[in-house]
């Protein structure tokens, strides 16, 4: 049985729904020795800011049961270096490269969107309003529907013809209200979810395992939370949702599509083995054939409830 893994996302053709999550796949190039980048549905690069950022002090990662905590603090090379040294080496004609944006305030977000929207090799902008590891900006935008909406609007205005994705935080009481506000503000798609805030401590040294004390939890441990969030958001908004959180197999991908996601991102699982995303993309059509799923559009959101 031949299956169709292609997906329609605003403004970009996507050959399959398997993308990589920001911050877990470097700038893509780091993973090129482990598979063909062109076989992926999309590559979301490490969060970019206008100026390079140093990030948080060490230690900034810790392992937890079925997951990990990180407090990288958005270390990145800055947008200019990315556009000059990294983007030209990525296969952007064959695979959408999505820029993940971080800034301290709405004006800076808009400025960054302006810079990136001029780039042919950037397929979409993913606005990170949900990073738990930075003091200014970050999660504050993602916890208030009004601010999330205004930010989406400010970015959209400067994004030219580039689709704008807003990346939601699970660290809120009602993710649906933020999702609605972002779409009303102009978001073309929603990425769902960023990490959950968490903590890990050592009873012997009596120290936190992260210098930042608190970090973002990711990995298989958060999959049920992500699946629930994607399900709730898909029920509430018509904009496409890109599911992320704990996905580590083709089976997981189908779970997210079943609850309504258009595409998915592989995050922490890229650390389990650097060819993970490639393997999942390769396995997906086989799994679809085994389950008799001809195309993803007809399978999407077909969860039988009640």
């Amino acid at each position: 049985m031949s299956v169709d893994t292609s997906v329609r996302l605003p403004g970009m053709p996507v050959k399959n729904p398997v993308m990589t999550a920001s911050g877990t796949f470097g700038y893509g190039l780091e993973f090129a020795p482990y598979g063909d980048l062109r076989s992926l549905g999309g590559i979301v690069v490490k969060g970019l800011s206008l100026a390079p950022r140093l990030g948080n002090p060490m230690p900034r990662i810790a392992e937890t049961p079925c997951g990990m905590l990180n407090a990288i603090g958005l270390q990145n090379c800055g947008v200019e270096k990315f556009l000059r040294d990294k983007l030209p080496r990525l296969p952007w004609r064959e695979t959408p490269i999505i820029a993940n944006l971080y800034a301290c305030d709405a004006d800076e977000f808009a400025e960054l969107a302006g810079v990136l929207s001029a780039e042919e090799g950037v397929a979409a902008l993913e606005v990170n309003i949900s990073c738990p590891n930075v003091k200014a900006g970050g999660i504050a935008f993602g916890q208030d529907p009004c601010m999330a909406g205004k930010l989406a609007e400010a970015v959209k205005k400067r994004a030219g013809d580039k689709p704008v994705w807003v990346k939601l935080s699970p660290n809120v009481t009602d993710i649906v209200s933020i999702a609605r506000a972002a779409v009303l503000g102009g978001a073309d798609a929603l990425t769902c979810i960023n990490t959950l805030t968490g903590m890990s401590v050592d009873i012997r040294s009596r120290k936190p395992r992260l210098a930042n004390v608190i970090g973002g939890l990711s990995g298989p441990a958060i999959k049920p939370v992500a699946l629930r969030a994607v399900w709730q958001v898909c029920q509430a908004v018509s904009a496409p949702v890109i599911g992320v959180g704990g996905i580590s197999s083709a089976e997981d991908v189908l779970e997210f599509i079943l609850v309504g996601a258009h595409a998915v991102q592989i995050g922490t699982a890229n650390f389990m083995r650097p060819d993970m995303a490639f393997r999942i993309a390769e396995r997906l059509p086989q799994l679809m054939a085994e389950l008799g799923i001809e195309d993803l559009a007809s399978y999407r959101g077909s969860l039988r409830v009640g």
Partner: protein
Amino acid sequence: MALSGACRDLTILSVTEAGPEGGAHGCYYIELANPGLGSAVAGQFVMVRPACFGQDPVWPRPFSICRLTPEALTLFVQVCGRGTDVLCRLVPGDTVTVWGPLGQGFSLEPDTPTLMLAGGVGLAPFVEYAATHPAPANLDLVFGHRQPLSCYPFAEMAAVVGRAQAFQENTPEDLPRFIELLETKVAEYAGGLIVACGPRPFLMTVARLARRFGARAQVSLENRMACGVGGCLGCVEKNALGQYVQTCTQGPVFWVEELQLSEEA
């Protein structure tokens, strides 16, 4: 199914206690068949993830290449937590996923008198260093350890290198004497090359002494790593310019003057 990539599923040939008391002190050799990793520079490492990890632990584990031949990859592993415990309980026939060789290895200068400073399990990369050095008579090894000497591949190395000396640290009072020994040695090699691997406090001492005596020295860092390939930014260390650099790709071996070593990792 033909799968892409440089990750290899390798079969365990053997897991053996290092020396008669090795098992009691958690020291093992793990031998993997037909690694197919090409050639390596001593000090480079591999990421290892046994199939039985499943979804927990999530991360693979980094290990120095202790010995690499076309027939086998040997790791020298000391049990210190969940992952190493699982690894050392594997049996012949089990499979582990391995990728590498990763990172930057030690400089090798055949004609330069070279001092190898190793602490505990930090001896592992020097087995490969000595085995691949064209003039092992130019090598001098100082090895600090806590477990009995027979738990480490020390005797084999002492047989091939020019000079070798071991120092067992049993009590806190031994530490100043060990540092004194390091001081004498580093001073002696100020005109040569010094390569070091071991616990962070040990490396910080080596770095301090190298600066004091103006010696050319390299240290290999064992920072916590999630991906090993430069993708997570979890393993960083501050360089001389105050920027964070990935120890998995730009290290683990650095010239001491390239770094601002801090106590935390």
